């Protein structure tokens, strides 16, 4: 019993060390081209621009007065940055390490667990996402005067929901990393595409009510649908989606938890299968630019 415990503790400790090392490396690689301040500005310009597109769309449609409606899509869009950043961060490392630095095979040989390594490399992306979300929330509340705050003091609920969604994104990112192990370098397009699909299906910037009904059915099988809904209930206080109204807060959390677990299983499975394929076909150091 003690031996098992010690073994687990040792494994955890070494995984943690790998994670920290990879996170450090990821930060170095992401940010070493400029000074931290410029890097921070650079990192948030993209998400701020995307959010402003939504604001201008409201403006041209003459709906800028609808503060709750705008807050609804603004918050959804802001928090979705976590999903796209984590998906990208976990997966893209495979291409960068394989084709740009050509170090993937050494990482694969060296790091005790490549999964820990990939997650660690994405930590910088998690930080960037946090920073962007904070800036957007402040901007939305102070400049655009949207009713964005933690309503009714539901910090704990909001935090649990937030973390579950990030875990689901990391798991799917691992699945993507697996796919990237066996495919040509398409840049960030694969993870951006998946993020795009989820963006649409989860009703990040509109209530899923406007989707065709067959798409709505699929939406209910996407953890991020519940994730954005839960976050919005906390941050905007209300929800304008009729189809989601029938879920209680507890039901939202339960669905999210179960589907996140499923995402973890799926991500690990895809990764494991892909890794086998990669090894049998010897794709670890392929170069595929054109």
């Amino acid at each position, binding site marked *: 019993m003690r031996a098992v415990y010690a073994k687990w503790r040792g494994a955890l400790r070494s995984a943690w060390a790998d994670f920290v090392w990879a996170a450090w490396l990821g930060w170095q690689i992401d940010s070493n081209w400029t000074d931290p301040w410029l890097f921070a500005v650079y990192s948030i310009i993209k998400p701020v621009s995307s959010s402003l597109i939504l604001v201008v769309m409201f403006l041209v449609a003459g709906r800028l007065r609808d503060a709750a409606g705008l807050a609804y899509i603004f918050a959804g869009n802001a928090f979705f940055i976590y999903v796209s950043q984590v998906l990208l961060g976990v997966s893209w490392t495979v291409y960068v390490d394989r084709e740009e630095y050509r170090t993937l095979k050494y990482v694969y040989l060296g790091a005790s667990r490549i999964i820990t390594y990939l997650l660690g490399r994405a930590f910088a992306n998690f930080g960037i996402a946090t920073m962007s979300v904070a800036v957007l929330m402040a901007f939305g509340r102070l400049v655009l005067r949207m009713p964005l705050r933690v309503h009714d003091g539901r910090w704990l609920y909001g935090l649990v929901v937030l973390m579950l969604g990030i875990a689901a994104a990391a798991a799917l990112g691992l699945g993507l990393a697996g796919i990237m192990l066996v495919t*040509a370098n398409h840049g960030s397009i694969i993870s951006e595409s998946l993020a795009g699909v989820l963006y649409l299906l989860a009703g990040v910037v509109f209530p899923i009510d406007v989707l065709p009904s067959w798409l709505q059915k699929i939406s209910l099988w996407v953890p991020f649908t519940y994730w954005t809904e839960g976050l919005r209930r906390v941050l905007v206080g209300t929800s304008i989606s009729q189809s989601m109204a029938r879920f209680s807060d507890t039901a939202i959390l339960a669905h999210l938890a179960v589907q996140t677990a499923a995402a973890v299983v799926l991500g690990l499975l895809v990764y494991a299968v892909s890794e086998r394929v990669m090894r049998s076909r010897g794709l670890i150091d*392929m*170069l*595929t*630019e*054109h």
Partner: protein
Amino acid sequence: MPESLDFAIRTVDLKRSYAKVPGHGDVVWALAGVDLAVYPGEVFGVLGPNGAGKTTLIKILSTLLLPTAGRAEVAGYDVVREAFAVRRIINMVSGGEYSGYGILSVRENLWMFSQLYGLTYSEARRRIDRLLAVVDLTSEQHKKVNKLSTGMRQKMNFARGFINYPRVLFLDEPTLGLDVTVSRRLRAFVREWVAEDTTRTVLLTTHYMQEADELCDRVAIIDRGHVLVCDRPAALKEKYHAATLEDVFIGLVGRSLDSGPEEEGAAS
């Protein structure tokens, strides 16, 4: 018109420095005043350990890098002022390197490069057929390059260097990492190539003694950016009473060729 047709390659007090740390004053001299004269019809070897300045010399002669001081001409054209004229008559191969597009086949890649020299389709086809045979890739010609082994890609890159039938060809460690049989085959072709048309010239760098001895009409031994000696391999061995070029080098420098310079440079 070229100033002088006597030399295929000529450098006069050629120097090149690199910043040790970009943006700081401290520099390394990769070439510290190199004088060379290579004649048409020669296979000329530049022999030296890692970091001696061989690649730097080739980059300057092939117009990819500007010298810091001094002069260099290829077939009478100045590599700085008449770079475009130089490019018409040269080509270059770096061993251990492979260019090209992974998603194209070997043949398509060679065709792509032939088009950089304006070859007609029929002429390109003829030359590609010949060169594929030379590097023994005829049966692999329709394979996509990203499915090839590194050795095969290197062979394709070697063939690429001849595609425009360059008057002056630069080979930077062309057999680096290739096996003995393949290396021998490629060396034989280099000889054949120059024998076929004596207006052609090959300048090749290497740190394999054997290669220089076997292949080159004359060699220059360089170390830390200086040319130490330059002559026919046999003459060098005789002059320094040495059995091999390696011994000539050790006699001159006091260390073996493979030891490399004290300050570690780039790999290769």
